[in-house]
């Protein structure tokens, strides 16, 4: 019992929780903001090439996580254009950093937010927005006072789904951000490592932690 308590308050146990929470919250906020704006934009505008851009945005939902991780490594790797720019700016490559985990979480969570928000914006009676237009509201006021409140159900369920997805991200993070305790070792990775090394107690504790976190969201 003592050893269980010791485990719970140990740095080794708490560290993945903080790492996961920080990553999921920051990625979640970015995904919710960009996803909402992008979804509204794509739900209302028609233009050439729209289908191509949408397919690219949705791809991470269909591709296996290790393929997403592979492409992240290729895009942000040391030899790529983006990778070299980052190395030049920050004096170090992004791969195997905390920011790499955030990027992985954003990429896999974005499609969920986008899809949910877009279906919310599409389902709404467009004439309600038109009524606000005639009532003298600017496009931004319509977005904030009409579109967002009316799509709120879809936006909230999208937010929950994408937060949960960011929190649970494993494959791409493992490949792109690695498994650095205290920096990129998230809960899902910690669980995997614990099972792999036969530490069932820690695995149970982390599973309970992540399931609790997911439920707190609801």
């Amino acid at each position, binding site marked *: 019992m003592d050893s269980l308590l010791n485990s719970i308050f140990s740095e080794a146990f708490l560290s993945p929780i903080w790492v996961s929470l920080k990553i999921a919250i920051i990625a979640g906020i970015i995904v919710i903001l960009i996803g909402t704006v992008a979804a509204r934009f794509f739900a209302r505008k028609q233009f050439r090439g729209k289908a191509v851009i949408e397919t690219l945005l949705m791809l991470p939902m269909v591709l296996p996580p290790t393929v997403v991780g592979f492409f992240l490594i290729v895009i942000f790797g040391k030899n790529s254009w983006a990778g070299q720019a980052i190395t030049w700016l920050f004096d170090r490559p992004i791969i195997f950093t905390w920011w790499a985990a955030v990027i992985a979480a954003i990429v896999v969570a974005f499609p969920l937010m986008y899809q949910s928000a877009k279906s919310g914006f599409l389902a709404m*009676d467009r*004439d*309600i927005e*038109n*009524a*606000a*237009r*005639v*009532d*003298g*509201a*600017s496009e931004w*006021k319509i977005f904030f*006072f*009409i579109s967002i*409140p*009316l799509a*709120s159900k879809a936006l909230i369920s999208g937010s929950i789904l994408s937060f949960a997805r960011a929190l649970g991200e494993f494959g791409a993070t493992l490949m792109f951000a690695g498994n650095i305790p205290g920096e990129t070792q998230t809960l899902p990775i910690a669980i995997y490592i614990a099972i792999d090394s036969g530490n069932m107690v820690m695995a149970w504790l982390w599973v309970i932690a992540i399931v609790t976190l997911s439920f707190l969201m609801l």
Partner: protein
Amino acid sequence: MANLKLQQLTKVYNKNEIAVKDFNLDIKDKEFIVFVGPSGCGKSTILRMVAGLEDITHGELFIDNQKMNDVSSKDRDIAMVFQNYALYPHMTVYQNMAFGLKMRKQTKTEIERRVNEAAAILGLKPFLHRKPAALSGGQRQRVALGRAIVRDANVFLMDEPLSSLDAKLRVQMRSEIISLHSRLQTTTIYVTHDQTEAMTMATRLVVLNHGQIQQIGTPKEVYEQPVNVFVAGFIGSPAMNFFSGSLTASGLKIGDQYIPIPAGLLPQNSSQDIIIGVRPEDMYIESATPMFHTEIEAVELLGADTMINAGLGDQPFTARIPSSIAIEPGQTLPLSIHLNRMLFFDSQSKNRIF
């Protein structure tokens, strides 16, 4: 309060679907104009171009002599009632009506005064703090009207505002809108596919078909002097009866039936083949000197009136007679037509010639 000028207004979708073509109309201050026509005739599209919700492909729109083509909706000073109400579902009735005033930066006291005034007119006072979902269909309709009238806008646009109400409520809201207009005198364009609404509400009505104006006139003019077969058949319920017949020197032949008609009541200089239009209420039972006898096929009791279906020269028609006369299907009746109310159309162009 404003006048409108619609000049050669044209709407083309996807480069080649013409929804509205060369629509010309001057609307005077305080008029209540009704656009009426079957679904797909372009009437709503014109309204949405006036509202700024659809781009104008060609032509020009003036409100109070100012060109409006490139002015955005929010700056046109119009108010609109939408077909499915389009209330803001997350706002109370009060907030729904106040929204447009807030957007136009009215003071709080002014907003309160105006919303309360509109709510009083429309009997919405008890519901000001309810959400639209907690209202009946008729109450929602009133909120949509209220949202339009608080704005004190220059022009009202109404897009089939009564089409989702049931028959009883429709009749009631119809007269409420009429009395609202006679009180506020705001220039109004009202769109409907229902010819009864068009007839009862309009100061002038515009009959549309396939994106083109068929006729503009007062309800009485359009009812009594329709310019073509489409207008004649569309306005009036039950619809006007049409017979194809041929002219003789002293009358008409419809199928094997000959009807003598005084020369002054017949069209001149027309080709022999014509279409004759007779409204159901312009036929009557006459035992003394009937124009023709016919066997009744079906009888529809409508309360005060009875509609009978029968044939004249093998062409079917409907006639309206008072319900006080008892009639059974199968019976043979002597009928006449009010000759001075007969209309004549060219069988080719379908235009009225007399």
